[in-house]
């Protein structure tokens, strides 16, 4: 799994609430049997017209905005459990997603792929959107070790929560399967104990 420690980057702002995984990657693009290549269809129907022409008013088609951090409104990633959503965001070049609230399954999927979901307060989220409004190149600094996110220009900082186990997985680049496989004997004992 991809490691994550520190990141300083401009952001791509998407100030919309309840962005569901059908918007992130529509079902018709879930037919691939590998994990790669979903990025080109990230936000497909918001990003492209039916004839595949980019929609000028969508933020990802605006060269003013770029960066490795996606910032979105609350309840990001709701709906379908498709991990393809996390793969698509990562494949499109993002390493972190910031929102004031994440849907559970998306959050787990992101963590399992080394894509860092950062939950901040509504207020801090507004500050980020405002900073990017004023200056599209405004950067954020994400520090996983210290669990902080900082708006570089203003110095405004907030700390974020992350499960300590998941944090160590991200920093070291190992995953849940590595962890559970080490407990295989316990699993077998559990099965025997239930008869």
């Amino acid at each position, binding site marked *: 799994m991809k490691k994550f420690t520190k990141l300083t980057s401009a952001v791509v702002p998407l*100030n*919309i*609430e*309840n962005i*569901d995984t*059908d*918007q992130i990657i*529509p*079902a*018709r693009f*879930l*037919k*691939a*049997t*590998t*994990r790669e290549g979903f990025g080109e269809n990230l936000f497909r*129907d918001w990003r492209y017209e*039916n004839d595949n022409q980019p929609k000028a008013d969508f933020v990802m088609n605006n060269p003013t905005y770029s960066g490795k951090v996606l910032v979105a*409104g*609350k*309840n990001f990633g*709701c*709906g*379908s*459990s*498709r*991990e*393809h959503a*996390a793969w698509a965001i990562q494949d499109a070049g993002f390493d972190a997603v910031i929102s004031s*609230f994440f*849907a*559970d*399954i998306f959050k*787990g*999927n992101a963590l*399992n*792929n080394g894509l860092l979901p950062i939950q901040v307060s*509504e207020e801090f989220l*507004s500050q980020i959107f405002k900073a990017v409004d004023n200056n599209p190149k405004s950067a954020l600094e994400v520090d996983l070790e210290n669990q902080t996110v900082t708006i570089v220009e203003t110095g405004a900082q907030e700390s974020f929560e992350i*499960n*300590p*186990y998941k944090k160590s997985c991200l920093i070291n680049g190992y*995953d*849940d*399967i590595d*962890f*559970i*496989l080490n*407990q*295989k004997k*316990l*699993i077998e004992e*559990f*099965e025997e104990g239930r008869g």
Partner: protein
Amino acid sequence: MSKTLVEKIWDAHVVKSEEGFPDILYIDTHLIHEVTSPQAFDGLRKRGLPVLRPKQTVATADHNVPTLNQLLPIKEELSRYQVDMLTKNCSEFGVELYGLGHPFQGIVHVIGPELGITLPGKTMVCGDSHTSTHGAFGAIAFGIGTSQVEQVFATQCLLQSKPKTMKIEVNGELGQGVGAKDIILYIIAKISAAGGTGYFIEYAGSAIEALSMEARMTICNMSIEMGARGGLIAPDQTTFDYIKGREFAPAGEEWDKALAYWKTLYSDADAKFDSVLTFDAKDIAPMITYGTNPGMGMGIQEHIPATGAQPEKEKLSYQKALDYMGFDDDSSLIGKPVDYVFIGSCTNSRIEDLREVADFVKDKRKADNVTVWIVPGSKQVEQQAKNEGLDKIFEAAGFQLREPGCSACLGMNEDKIPAGKYCVSTSNRNFEGRQGQNARTLLASPLTAAAAAVTGKITDVRDLLKR
């Protein structure tokens, strides 16, 4: 110590619990389908691992399958490849597959219960968010991502933090024309599409206890639409009667043993929930959604809430949703013409749903402006519908009875709603483009959908029911 039902089942499945780590939770049954499993099988190959407990794993093909001429090769190349890949993977890893042509094939959340695979007290997962459906039997069942599918393949366990618990009580009697789908759409409209996030929900109260198993499945199915990890209902005589005699249900001595255990599965009277909500069944009307998330629902006689009445920060997203739907705020939907009616999906495609619709449309005919698709949840439901002569009723009404699959619920297979068209759908999601690019979905119960089919417009089904 007194425990909630979720805690009882959870605690009975903890292989290891350690401070600072998620629990290692044992999974009894792993359901898989073609869309979210191929990368997980690939992961096993890369690690050189087998499926640890193939006999606790069951596969079917549902998301990508056509619902006409199922025995012919799938036309769309990528869909065909994905379904073929499932067949190949199941054969290589020794997993039982109820694929196309098999008498048990169907939507994964329909076949589990009808085959007696879904049982009280079990832990069940599937790479599909509507796995919460199985909670109707008093099981802990929830959707997972593909990395977790691989995890369960490899270890029969999942790393999971114990969820918070919420009790939602619905008491009293439902009015005429109001069913399980209306209950759950009402709850989601009340607490929002994110109101259950982080929780496992137990549904209780006299209105829930009075429901059939099919109706309970409809309720639990949509738990995810308020963000909940899952939803369940304590098993009772209705549950036991439904399970008894099914294909893989315990029998003989095993049945007695299982039943004795199942009867211990309820939340203790003084168990503490992290949150409790109570609703009155008599306040619930036939529901319909007007927006682009399942929380944007209302009683069918109500007006779409005014944009001005939304919290400042939400106004933009709210208006965007109404623009997508082509609706004005503060307007009624009654009488609005519809183009399609879809009766199906893991929410409402069981035999009881089909019976209810058939009973309503008997001696009626669909309106000329509407295309009506009825898609049974499984081969068994399809067969049962034919045995009962429901197919004849649908045919006479101009409703098309198709073959089982996820169909128009998710715009992945051949069944899609065209751009700009309105579809009254018994499925679970009204997201932008969910049923096809730029399609407009209005979620409702099978009865409300059938009423729209007959009149060609949004209709309060109560006006058409005999009083």
